[in-house]
């Protein structure tokens, strides 16, 4: 069998196994959807009454930001899942089998992507309930979700490296929380970046999460042409910037993750 096809076939077997786990232990996905619902409600009703976005209904502005934050957090399950499999010796089992070295990672990132799709669906419904609307075409909206999922998929590979290196699901969780929270807040996700102090503003404007959020906003039609995005390249070309960011992250972390997997030995 061709190596790549075999890796995909093995990856599908692993992904199926992960999805069975999600079905049997739904806690993870339940909490993964409950927290963004909570975020939507908190921001829409608590901050929404205080934050002014010029030319925009805050709830419309908010949704792309929450989507972006949520799928990035969703990608952290890749790290915790792999760390847990390491801990339980399952990775040892996989590594003793004649399967492709990339298969476990392909399977893991794929099932986590599907999880993210489920989460996005639930969130979209919540958003629609609180007054979010898509003002673009169906295809553009689909592209908006696609950009976010591609980015989340790329983050998954980064989390895979972390999960295999750290080996403890709790540590992966805490570590990613510390990194991802500021990353998703120092961005255009929940507030406009215009009034941020200098260094934070620069960071926010070049933060890939800002590009992804801006891309989704534009593709959902949640922007006001009267109030254009800041004049920096990634926010002027957010879709292209998001895709580029995603590809760069994939190009860096796929080889790193596979290398880490080859050496991964549980203790």
């Amino acid at each position, binding site marked *: 069998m061709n190596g790549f096809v075999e890796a995909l076939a093995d990856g599908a*077997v692993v992904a199926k*196994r992960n999805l069975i786990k999600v079905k049997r232990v739904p806690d993870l996905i339940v909490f993964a959807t409950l927290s963004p619902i909570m975020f939507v409600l908190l921001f829409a009703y608590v901050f929404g009454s205080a934050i002014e976005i010029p030319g925009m209904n805050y709830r419309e502005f908010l949704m792309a930001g929450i989507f972006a934050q949520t799928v990035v957090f969703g990608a952290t399950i890749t790290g915790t899942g792999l760390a847990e499999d390491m801990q*339980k010796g399952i990775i040892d089992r996989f590594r003793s089998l004649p399967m492709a070295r990339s298969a476990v990672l392909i399977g893991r990132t794929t099932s986590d992507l599907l999880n993210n799709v489920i989460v996005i669906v639930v969130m979209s419904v919540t958003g629609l309930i609180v007054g979010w609307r898509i003002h673009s075409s169906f295809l553009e909206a689909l592209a908006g979700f696609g950009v976010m999922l591609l980015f989340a998929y790329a983050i998954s590979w980064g989390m895979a490296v972390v999960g295999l290196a750290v080996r403890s699901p709790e540590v992966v969780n805490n570590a990613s929380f510390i990194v991802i929270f500021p990353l998703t807040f120092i961005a255009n996700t929940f507030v406009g970046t215009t009034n941020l102090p200098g260094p934070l503003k620069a960071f926010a404007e070049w933060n890939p999460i800002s590009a992804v959020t801006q891309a989704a906003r534009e593709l959902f039609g949640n922007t006001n042409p009267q109030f254009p995005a800041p004049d920096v390249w990634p926010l002027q070309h957010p879709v292209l910037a998001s895709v580029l960011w995603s590809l760069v992250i994939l190009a860096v972390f796929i080889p790193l993750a596979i290398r880490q997997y080859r050496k991964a030995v549980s203790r």
Partner: protein
Amino acid sequence: MADAIVAEGLVKRYGSVVALDGLDLVVPEGSIMGLLGPNGAGKTTAVRVLTTLLEFDAGRAAVAGLDVVRDARELRRRIGLSGQYAAVDETLTGFENLDMVGRLYHLGRQPSRERARELLERFDLVDAADRQVKGYSGGMRRRLDLAAALVAKPVVLFLDEPTTGLDPRSRLGMWDVIEELVAGGTTVLLTTQYLEEADRLADQIAVIDHGQVIAEGTSDELKAQVGGERLELTVGSSRDVASTRSALAPLAIAEISVDERSNHVVVPVSGGADLLVEAVRLLDGESIKVLDIGLRRPTLDDVFLTLTGHAAQDGQTDEERGA
């Protein structure tokens, strides 16, 4: 007969810790090799190197005629590994676990299912086949883990402490299963810290300590290396210890050892059961009251103690854990 496992001068370091320090090992096809050693001796490291899980620093190794580095992928098709911790997925059912492993060995959809059913039957797990593994007992998990190692009918099977943590009954059951397997011609490398287990299962035993094989042979050969039989007795009163020693001196072939606290006397002897009669007569002549007397052959525990200077079940060292 060809050799199923050959390792020459394997070295594996973790920073400054040397886990394998020039390990040599040869296991003929169709036999069981018992790798015996305390925690931290390097047993698990050796298994990981031989099953391609771990890169090593020097030496070479081949399993089923395939080099563990160069032919790693092909080698994995021919081996089975059952680890120290039952590496089965708790949220999957027993059947799903085995079916998944079959698919990953590329047996194909239908053959994987059939093989899974077959193994569940053989390991007495049919009733539990469609239940999640988290409800399984420790013994059932180990059996399932072993079944997973057998999915592709491996020619060489690695069992890393297959009975550690099992209750005595499950352990006996596991032993039966392993014996049955080997009767079918599979070569087995078994690591254990239970001397009893090596004694019962292994054709050849390699005693390993600090990453090296320090003695090798059949269980009988190893015991002979330590010394032959000995007469062990416990006398009723500490006053009798000294007189026991002098009474039995004519039978001893080496120095008699005495434990004053427990009134325990050990006399190295050679000559079989007749000696026991002789000893009882001598003690009776001195009117010494004997609580317990027996002719004992050395256990592998004695072998271990003699060879390594420490008992087989010493506390865990950092080596195995930390590395």
